[in-house]
């Protein structure tokens, strides 16, 4: 049986892709950001996930204003890096897992989540930057990816509660897939940032860190945060954090933090990153990574 063995949260600022692609990732500006991912890169090498369900949002790349799916799942064989206006990133193609993706899609629809199915699309920085942060610069990505796109651009996006519930349904779907697969789920975007208007540049360290705290343990209070709170407290683009709740919802009642990183700024944005282990008696510490891990909060 397939199972979700870990959850990863990460910002997906496009500038991080630029830094990685042009070898600026250890300079004075980007060094402290990338250093916070070193632990995770080593950990991923040991964990060797077969598939990552990657929750992200498209930034007017694959989807324009013609069609706006609230939740969409990629069931294709492979995805190319999108040209976001300066040429596509020189990163490997993203290989899909159509068997698992279609299984999840069908299960979700029967579980009353009315998913949009994507067979062909290009994927933008929302999806490829987290891959670079977690895996560096390999010739091919070390795992397959099931893209799960959430609308957080046109209002209203789905509620945090709905995102969390979708995560719960994804977990059920994964666990009913017969093949033995090591599946991770990643929630991306955030943390506080506002990219528009006179209030641009807003950052709220205290709120962000409370949100990180809230992902750990058995509380589900984060699912009840209304959109307006994200907007007021973390900037208009901070709303992306509802995507982290899909990830959190998929980890079951209780979680343990294996790693945590927070840094301001990256361009206009606060970088947040966390690695979580579902902690409901599953015994998923396959690699012994959970003991003695450094929990470094800034």
């Amino acid at each position, binding site marked *: 049986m397939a199972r979700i063995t870990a959850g990863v949260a990460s910002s997906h600022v496009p500038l991080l892709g630029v830094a990685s692609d042009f070898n600026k990732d250890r300079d004075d500006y980007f060094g402290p950001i990338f250093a916070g991912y070193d632990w995770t890169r080593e950990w991923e090498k040991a964990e060797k996930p077969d598939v990552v369900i990657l929750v992200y949002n498209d930034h007017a790349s694959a989807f324009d*204003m013609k069609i706006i799916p609230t939740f969409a799942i990629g069931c294709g064989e492979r995805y190319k890096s999108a040209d976001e206006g300066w040429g596509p990133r020189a990163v490997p193609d993203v290989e899909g897992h159509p068997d698992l993706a279609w299984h999840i899609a069908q299960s979700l629809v029967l579980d009353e989540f009315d998913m949009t199915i994507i067979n062909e699309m290009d994927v933008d920085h929302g999806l490829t930057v987290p891959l670079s942060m977690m895996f560096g610069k390999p010739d091919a990505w070390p795992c397959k990816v099931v893209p799960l796109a959430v609308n957080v651009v046109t209002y209203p996006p789905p509620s945090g509660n709905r995102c969390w519930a979708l995560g719960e349904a994804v977990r059920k779907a994964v666990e009913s897939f017969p093949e033995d697969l090591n599946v991770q789920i990643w929630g991306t975007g955030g943390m506080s940032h506002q990219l528009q208007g006179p209030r641009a540049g807003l950052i709220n360290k205290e709120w962000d860190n409370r949100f990180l705290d809230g992902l750990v343990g058995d509380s589900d209070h984060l699912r009840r945060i209304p959109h307006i709170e994200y907007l007021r407290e973390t900037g208009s683009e901070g709303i992306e954090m509802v995507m982290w709740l899909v990830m959190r919802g998929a980890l079951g009642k209780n979680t343990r933090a294996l790693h945590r990183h927070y840094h301001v700024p990256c361009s206009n944005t606060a970088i947040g990153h966390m690695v979580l282990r579902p902690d409901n008696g599953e015994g998923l510490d396959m690699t012994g990574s959970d003991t003695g891990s450094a929990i470094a909060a800034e």
Partner: protein
Amino acid sequence: MITEDPKHQDIHEYLAEMEDIPGTRVFTAKRARQGYHMNQFAMSLMKDENRAKFKADERAYMDEWPLTEDQKDALIARDYNRCLDMGGNVYFLAKLFSTDGIPFAEAVSTMTDMKFPEYREMMMKGGRSPEGVRSIKANEAAAAAKKEDR
């Protein structure tokens, strides 16, 4: 809970709250409809050949789109706050940032009252504080209370 007000859990209160944030234009359906063609125009700049045509003659290129004259003027002036007011969305307008070859953060800074170096400096120091920019209504109430005190 879809809004802050437990007594008004409906779309009207939801949309009213979206308009209560200082210096922010939330991309609601109303704005999405108003800016539909502006955003689709910006989207067209993802293609190299369209970028070349646009750069050769911005107005002629935009005349092929059903944009209002105000929208065209705001786009030519790169007045992004006015673009937002007329339904532009920053992820779509970003196609114009990259056509111009300017960093995202620099384009964003033009919407604030700061020059880019000053904006960068603010970000390096931890960004803009949410203090005093959470709610238009709360700010008005605070200002009124202050007036009464005098």
